[in-house]
C-alpha cells in the first residue's frame, strides 16, 4: 500500500474540519476527492502533505509512519503536491522554479538545470524557460506547479484544484497532461470541483461533507448516490432537480 491514512481528524478549536477520515491509495490509483465548498477536502489534503498537523489519526507512506514528518521530509519520501492558489516563486524564472523541485534529488546546479529542462520539455513549457514566473497567467502557473512537483520525482502527486479557473480547452490540455503523468507510473490524488475531470480521470472517488466521508466508490457509483446529491444541493433542491443528470447538477460540462 502506497499511502494509508487512518482516522484522520483535524479540529480548529471545537470545530472539526475533518472527522475521522480514512483513505488508502494503491500504486497506479487516481483518487478523486470531491465535496461542496468547506466540506473539509482541502484540509484533509493538507493533512496528507504535512502542511497541517493532525489532531488525531495516523498517516502511513509505504508502511512508514509519516504522521509527524514535516512537508519537506514527506517530499523527500516521494510525496509531491500543487496548491489551490498557485504559490509560484515570483522572483524567479520558470526554469528556476522547476529547479527548486529538481534540487531535491541532486545538489548540483547543472544537474538540477538539466532535469528541470527535461521536465519543462515534458509539460510543454520549454520555450518559456527563461521567462520570469510572474509573467505567467493562471494556466501557466498551474502547469508550472505541476512541473515543479514532477521535478521532485514523486511517487504520489497530490493536485489541489489544478484545473480551477481554466477554460474548457485548457482543462482538456491539463487532463491530457495528468493522463500522461499517470502513464509514467505516478499515483495521483486530485481535489477537483469540475466533475468532468473527476469522471474522466479518477479510478476511485471519495466524497466529503461537513468534515466526514459520506461516500466512496467509482465515479459513477458516487454521483448517483442520493446522499451525495443531497450534500451538494440540499434535500429540497435535490428533489426539484430530479430530472437532471447528476453531472450537470454538480457543475459538470454545463458550466
Amino acid at each position, binding site marked *: 500500500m502506497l499511502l494509508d491514512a487512518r482516522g484522520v481528524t483535524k479540529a480548529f478549536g471545537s470545530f472539526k474540519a475533518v472527522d475521522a477520515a480514512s483513505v488508502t491509495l494503491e500504486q497506479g490509483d487516481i483518487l478523486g476527492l470531491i465535496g461542496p465548498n468547506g466540506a473539509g477536502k482541502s484540509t484533509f489534503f493538507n493533512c496528507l502533505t504535512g502542511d497541517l498537523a493532525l489532531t488525531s489519526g495516523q498517516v502511513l507512506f509505504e508502511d512508514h509512519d509519516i504522521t509527524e514528518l514535516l512537508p*519537506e521530509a514527506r517530499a523527500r519520501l516521494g510525496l509531491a503536491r500543487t496548491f489551490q492558489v498557485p504559490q509560484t516563486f515570483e522572483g524567479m524564472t520558470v526554469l528556476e522554479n522547476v*529547479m*527548486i523541485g529538481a*534540487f*531535491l534529488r541532486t545538489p548540483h546546479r547543472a544537474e538540477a538545470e538539466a532535469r528541470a529542462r527535461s521536465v519543462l520539455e515534458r509539460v*510543454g513549457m520549454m*520555450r518559456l524557460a527563461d521567462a520570469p514566473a510572474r509573467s505567467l497567467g493562471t494556466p*501557466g502557473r498551474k502547469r508550472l506547479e505541476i512541473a515543479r*512537483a514532477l521535478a521532485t520525482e514523486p511517487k504520489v502527486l497530490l493536485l489541489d484544484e489544478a484545473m480551477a479557473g481554466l477554460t474548457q480547452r485548457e482543462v482538456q490540455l491539463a487532463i491530457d497532461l495528468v493522463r500522461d503523468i499517470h502513464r509514467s507510473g505516478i499515483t495521483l490524488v486530485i481535489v477537483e470541483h469540475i466533475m468532468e475531470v473527476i469522471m474522466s480521470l479518477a479510478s476511485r472517488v471519495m466524497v466529503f461533507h461537513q468534515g466526514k466521508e459520506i461516500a466512496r466508490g467509482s465515479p459513477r457509483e458516487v454521483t448517483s448516490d442520493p446522499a451525495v446529491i443531497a450534500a451538494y444541493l440540499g434535500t429540497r433542491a435535490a428533489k426539484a432537480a430530479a430530472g437532471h443528470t447528476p453531472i450537470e447538477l454538480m457543475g459538470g460540462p454545463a458550466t
Partner: protein
Amino acid sequence: MRRTLWLLIALALVVAYPLVFTTPFQQRLGALVLLYAIAASAWNIVGGYAGQISVGHVVFFGSGAYAAMGAYAHFALSPLIGIPAGIVFAVLIAAVIGGPTLRLSGHYFSMATIAVAELARLIVTNTEYLGAAVGLSGPTVPRNVFDMSFISALPYYYLFLAILIITLGITWWMTSSRMGFYLRAIKDSERAARSLGAPASRTKLYAYMLSAGLTSVAGALYAMIFGFVDPESGLGILISVKILIMAALGGAGLLFGPFVGAAILVPLEEISNSLLGGKGAGLTFVVYGAIIVLIARFQPGGILALINRLWAKRRAKPTEESISKEASHAS
C-alpha cells in the same frame, strides 16, 4: 559576457578611486563605503535573499568589534586576532537565537531581533570586562603594522575592498548553489518551497549563521578604523537600521544592491553632514529623511532594481498567448 565587461569596468573604477580622489577625507569616505558595503552585503544574505528582516544584526557587528578591541585591550594582541574569535562568537549567537526566532514570521522575527540586540547592548553596558559604558579602545600609537592603526585610509581601503570582494564572492557562490535557490524560494513562498523538499528552517539558519559571521568581520574592521568601540557605536540599534537601509536602498536580494546603497548613502550622509551639520539646525536629517521617504515611496525595490528593470525592458517579454500556444503545441 557583457556583464563581465561591466563588472571589470566597475572593479577598475573602485580600485582606482583612492588614486583619483587623494585627499585623506575622500579616501576615508571610500573606505567607509566599502566597510558599510561589507556589512550590508552580509545582511543581504539573510535579509535580502532569505527575506528574513533582521533588525538586530548589530549583535553580530558588535561581537566582531568587541572581539577585535578585546584582543588588543585584554591580551595586547593584534586586533586582527580578534576577527576569527568574533566570527565564532557571532555564529554561535546566530545558532542559538536563530533556532527559536527564525520560526517566527515577518514582524515577529524583526521584533525578536530588535529585542536581542537591545538585550546585548544593555548587558554589555553593565559588563565591566567589556569596558561597560566607556567601551574598549584600540592602539592609538601602533606598535607594528598588525595593530591596524594607520594614518592614511589607503591600507584600510584596499583591505576592505579585498574583504568586500570575498563577501560578494561567498554571496555569489551561495546564490548560485542549491542553498541560494532554496533561500529565494523560501522568501517567495515558504510553504511551496517546503512542499518541494526545501528544508526551510535549516536553510534559513545556515544563511543566518553565514550572514552573522560576515557581519562580525565588518564589525571588527569598523572597530579597527575607528580604534574604538562602545555600546552605542558597537551595539546601537541605529547601526542595524543603517545597514538595513543601505541594503534596501540599493536593492535587497541583489548581489550588488548593498554596495550601491552604501555608495550612495555613506557619502550622502557624510557630505550633507559636512555641509549642513555645522549649522546645527538638524537639516542633515531632514534631507536624509526626505530622500529615504521618496525612495521608499517611488522605488521600493531599491535603486539597482530600477536599473535592472530599465535594462530588462530592452528584451522581449513573453506573453500570455505564447504560453497557451506553447502548451497546446506540446501536449
